[in-house]
């Protein structure tokens, strides 16, 4: 079998605060293959962004601390790399696009300057080459009159254009992995559709792998090959996109799907909300973190955290003691 592009083993991240230790990521393991699109789904505070930032060691230390685990990128552990070597990976081989394009672009420099900077740094192009390449990239992501637009400042771009510029910047060094952290959450649906379409196209043209982090299961259905569902710092379900939607095995995933209204739903349909709130990450329950909100709870759930184990075939993994009961329910 070919070596995966990125392999994460038992990653643990905590934040030390005045209120206690926040257990943000609690032993996350998975891998991404070359050219694969992975959707990472979960609600605020489930650890989806923190785990992605930790891959490139971008979390603030302190208060954050990577307690343990490995992040193997082409077999090299990024957590052990020297800062100099890490610099070549950041932005060069792994690029990142953040949620809010206004705060991730520097308002004091032109958009062109910021793309050129990445190119001269990682690709060692001279100014003219870099400028030419930047214009190509901007038109690739669908910005009209790209050459002239290079000299615009971020505030002269609309929200959708800024996110396109961020994507152009991320693509500038032809990364083998693009981490997109809620890239369309701040955008309107028609613009979101444009960005999703763009990333899909670029992904298939360049064969890069994409990690798309979002709370929106709908967006993930549009583009992901595989999906990790996260809850309270754990991966609670992982599998091929179709299996997550059609052969759901975890009660939390089931609840998330039930909470979403469907455009094609029948009148009078009631949403299946998940009762209660996510647990406090400072004071996680002893057993499964979902116990307080789960309909399938029994004694064992209160006692110990279920392992992430195979739910039958097809690389489908689930962390629930009762997944087979749920499987029967879904089949009905």
């Amino acid at each position: 079998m070919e070596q995966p592009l990125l392999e994460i083993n038992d990653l643990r991240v905590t934040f030390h605060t005045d209120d206690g230790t926040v257990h943000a990521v609690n032993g996350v393991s998975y891998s991404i293959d070359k050219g694969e699109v992975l959707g990472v789904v979960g609600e605020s505070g489930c650890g989806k962004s923190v785990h992605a930032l930790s891959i490139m060691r971008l979390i603030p230390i302190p208060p954050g601390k990577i307690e343990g685990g490995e992040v193997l990128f082409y077999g090299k552990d990024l957590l052990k790399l020297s800062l100099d070597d890490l610099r070549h990976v950041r932005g060069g081989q792994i690029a990142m696009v953040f949620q809010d394009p206004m705060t991730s672009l520097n308002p004091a420099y032109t958009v062109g300057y910021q793309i050129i900077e990445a190119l001269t740094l990682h690709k060692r192009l001279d100014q003219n080459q870099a400028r030419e390449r930047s214009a190509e990239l901007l038109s690739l992501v669908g910005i009209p009159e790209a050459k002239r637009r290079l000299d615009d400042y971020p505030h002269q771009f609309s929200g959708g254009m800024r996110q396109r510029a961020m994507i152009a910047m991320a693509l500038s060094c032809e990364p083998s992995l693009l981490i997109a952290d809620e890239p369309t959450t701040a955008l309107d649906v028609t613009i979101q559709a444009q960005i999703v379409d763009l990333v899909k196209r670029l992904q298939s043209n360049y064969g890069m792998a994409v990690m798309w982090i979002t709370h929106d299961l709908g967006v993930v259905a549009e583009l992901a090959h595989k999906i990790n569902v996260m809850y309270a710092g754990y991966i609670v379900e992982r599998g091929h996109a179709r299996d997550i939607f059609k052969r759901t095995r975890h009660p939390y995933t089931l609840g998330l799907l039930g909470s979403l209204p469907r455009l094609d739903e029948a009148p009078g349909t009631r949403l299946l909300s998940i009762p209660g709130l996510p647990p406090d990450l400072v004071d996680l329950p002893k057993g499964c973190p979902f116990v307080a909100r789960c309909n399938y709870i029994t004694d064992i759930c209160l006692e110990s955290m279920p392992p992430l184990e195979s739910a039958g075939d097809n690389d489908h993994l689930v962390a629930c003691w009762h997944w087979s009961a749920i499987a029967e329910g879904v089949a009905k």
Partner: protein
Amino acid sequence: MSAESDVLVKVQNLTKYFPIHKGILTQRHVGDVKAVDDVSFEIFRGETLGLVGETGCGKTTVGRTILRLYEPTSGHVFFEGSDLMSLNESGMRSFRKRMQMIFQDPYASLNPRMTVGSIIAAPLDVHGVPDGKGKNERIEELLDLVGLNPEFVNRYPHEFSGGQRQRIGIARALAVNPDLIICDEPISSLDVSIQAQVVNLLEDLQQQLGLTYLFIAHDLSMVRHISDRMAVMYLGKIMELADRNEIYLRPLHPYTQALMSAVPVPDPDVVENRHRVILEGDLPSPSNPPVGCNFNTRCPFVKDICLQEEPQYVELQPGHWVACHFADQNL
């Protein structure tokens, strides 16, 4: 349902321009942001009218102008037949009791220095509803109604999660027994699982109390879920208004069609089989809307007439309103 007596709110040619001024000493009026431009619709008693559109389309301004939180530039709003725009301040106050609002950001819309009890009591005090013991009972009753523990009256907003804060905002709106509640993006700042809780609560309250909602949001599938009828806004104008099923099955306006097809559907089967219309470009600026049809810069079917003449907003079929030159060809 369209009998005149069933109309709770009638909005007629409502227009709100925000002036743009230039100059420091002499304020020259150099233009207007046309936030709401000649909008007309009715809200029937007991229904939920959904108002959907993208950022900056004027949907929030419509809600606020109905309550006269903004003074309209022109147009009328009739509440049970009385023209709100002709009322003076004290006349308006007696109507405000009957129209309340729930705001988008449950962090910004609750005063952090007030206890939950005093937040909910504020509208009771302003409108002079029961004093003393009756008031405390009413507050506890309201907390119970929105699914919060009545013992929380003396807590402060920061002790609650986002969803719970939104419940406090709902309790405050319900305090004075309103007929109409304008919900301005009440769930967009909440997590998915919490959104469903709040939407279910709003639906239950409507059933119990016979409320009428104007539900403003950008999330098309959520608006369709909660609404009886829905209106689609674009750049200050209503493009299409119809029954929730009618507009989903037979959208007549190209913008509605594009908006529907842009909504992500959490189902790989649907994703594979559907035809997507991806709109090009961005929303034009409302201070300089295009000549002719507002949508002509992004419309995939644009023709010459669209660049010159603004389409009329007409009732093409009973209860189905649309503003497009070619809507009848989609029938």
